């Protein structure tokens, strides 16, 4: 799944310790400022969450995995869209924190992952994504 083609993967480096990044990532007040207003957020395994996006859309889902200061994995369901998975992973690097965000579209596109791996379409797709 993490071939970077069919799942979206972004890496960022923040000048803060993992705990500080985690605070900003999980605190409801902070979430409202950088991501979306959390109408519900139960930060535990199987806990429910509901986000109201600035554009007016709504994301609902459950917490698949939570390891404070390190990993947060969410089931992501936006409107009528096929459910997908959003994963945040933090790791300390000296004084900084590296965050890897991976948004993978598990269901319908898992088949596409196979196709993309094998076919010439992967290069065309890769070019479009890189642009």
């Amino acid at each position, binding site marked *: 799944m993490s071939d970077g083609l*069919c799942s*979206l993967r*972004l890496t*960022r480096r*923040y*000048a*803060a310790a993992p705990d*500080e*990044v985690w*605070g*900003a*990532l999980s605190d409801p007040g*902070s979430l409202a*400022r*950088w*991501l979306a207003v959390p109408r519900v957020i139960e930060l535990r395994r199987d806990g429910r969450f509901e986000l109201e996006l600035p554009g007016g859309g709504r994301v609902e889902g459950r917490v698949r995995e939570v390891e404070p200061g390190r990993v947060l994995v969410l089931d992501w369901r936006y409107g009528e*869209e096929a459910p997908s998975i959003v994963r945040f992973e933090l790791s300390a690097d000296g004084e900084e924190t590296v*965050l890897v*965000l991976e*948004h993978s*579209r598990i*269901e*319908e*596109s*898992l*088949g*596409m992952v*196979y*196709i*993309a791996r*094998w*076919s*010439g*379409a992967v290069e065309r*797709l890769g070019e*479009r*994504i890189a642009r």
Partner: protein
Amino acid sequence: MRALTALADPTRRRIVELLAEGERSAGQIAAEFSTSRPGVSRHLRVLREHGLVRARDDGQRRLYSLDPAPLAELDGWLARYRPFWSNRLDALDTEIRRRQRRAGQGK
């Protein structure tokens, strides 16, 4: 889920791989397998039902090719989410700094 089910079978994955190279007739596809011709036709039917493969008639033959629609859909999905997350993660940086400033003031 639909595509996934169809691709659970190794013969069907191999057919998709073959069609990624270009259009093929059922006979050309069957020639690549030890599976019987009706067996291959059955796999092609499943792939069509799952929206992965499409067929067109060319005289006596029926030609099969990959359906680009699911890929185009995926492309649209990526085009939408990439800028979304990129902007959000920049906003996270601003939020981290804000929290750091606030914690600094608290000391």
